[in-house]
């Protein structure tokens, strides 16, 4: 993309290509928001393989968060196979963007409507209740440390 190339051509630090913004109210943990933004940037083409992610120091001086949170996010990106930390150098993108084909998209949509949504409607849930249930379930997936054994 043209923006990308111009930035790279101008040898700007990558922080100008990706700068994080946080939503405190969303309920999504901070480190996960960072992960999601990197993934989004990747799928939109703002980040490509070989790009260096901003250093912990750079992130922290623009968004006042705990450095450990950034480290946690970068570790998560590593475990997802998206980035790789090189000691003394930095953290670099190693994966190509995950392209979601339109076929895949429509297949997912179909299974959602005819599957889970249909069952929820049958059970009598209102739209608001469905949204609430969905959000809480997404929250559970997002925080893998929960050990509750709910039904």
């Amino acid at each position, binding site marked *: 993309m043209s923006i990308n190339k111009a930035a790279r051509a101008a040898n700007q630090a990558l922080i100008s290509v990706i700068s994080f913004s946080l939503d405190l109210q969303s309920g999504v943990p901070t480190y996960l928001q960072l992960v999601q933004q990197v993934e989004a940037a990747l799928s939109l083409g703002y980040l490509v393989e070989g790009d260096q992610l901003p250093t912990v120091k750079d992130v922290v001086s623009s968004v006042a968060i705990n*450095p450990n949170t950034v480290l946690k996010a970068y570790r998560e990106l590593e475990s997802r196979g998206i980035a790789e930390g090189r000691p003394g150098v930095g953290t670099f993108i190693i994966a190509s963007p995950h392209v979601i084909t339109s076929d895949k998209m429509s297949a997912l949509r179909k299974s959602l409507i005819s599957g889970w949504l249909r069952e929820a409607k049958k059970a009598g849930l209102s739209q608001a209740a469905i949204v609430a249930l969905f959000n809480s379930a997404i929250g559970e997936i997002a925080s893998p440390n929960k050990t509750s054994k*709910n039904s």
Partner: protein
Amino acid sequence: MLSVVSSTNLAKSYQGKLALKDCTIDVPVGAVVALVGPNGAGKTTLLDIVAGLLPATFGDVRLFENVIPGSLESLQRVSFVAQNSPLYQNMTVIDAVRLTESLNVIFDREYALTRLQKLQISLKRRIGKLSGGQQAQVALTLAIARHPDLLLLDEPLSSLDSLARQQFLSELMTSVATTSMSVIFSSHSIYELEKVCDYLILVVGGEVQLCDSLDRIVESHRMIACAPGELDDYSDIEIIERKLGTRFSTHLIKVKNLLSRSALESHPTSLENIVLAYLRRAQEVEALNASVKL
């Protein structure tokens, strides 16, 4: 785990009042600690004792495993920014830099001057003429320039507007990222602290209610909705707060081991809710004590 601050049964009384009682805390090295509590809870007293400004009445406090607060070694390794960043109002910024430099073994003049320049604080200006946010930044810069192992801040954000707050926390977090400094800062609000801190000490009425990492606090507290008597059988559960309802009650509990019983349906709750529950509980206890005295 090495601890940067640890205390056992710490108590402080003055002017006949017990400001701190039975405080046992343990803070690991490298933590960014939020010292939270309502006004008058004893946060400033605790920080004063750790900084070596006040002697404890009872109990033990140790810094860096074996250093006594107030000793020369602790003074050289600990920086303290008290409430409202006390600086000499008639002194110029550059004089404050010179003063701090001459009174300390370690002082990074380059860092201080670079930082002040980036913040666009004129060196020739008198400190009294700076805004509250700028004064806080100067105090913080001077404190960090000493390269302390432990940085103590007493309500650093209370007189700052949101932009100044953001800038202050950015500078603080950058220093934490680049050094192995531990930070304890007190605040009477928990907003914004979650993204900056990884450890929490909750003090209410002079007593420590919580002292743990944020992760462990959130993991070890859960909300349960059940009939009032149902929880009595479980010995490893502590009920923090109970909201009675007609058919069932909502409880906030603390579990000693993290695997909850399968019979109970519980779900996690936010840090803010947990802290508020403790605050409400302490308030109730105080009201009870006050009425008993009457």
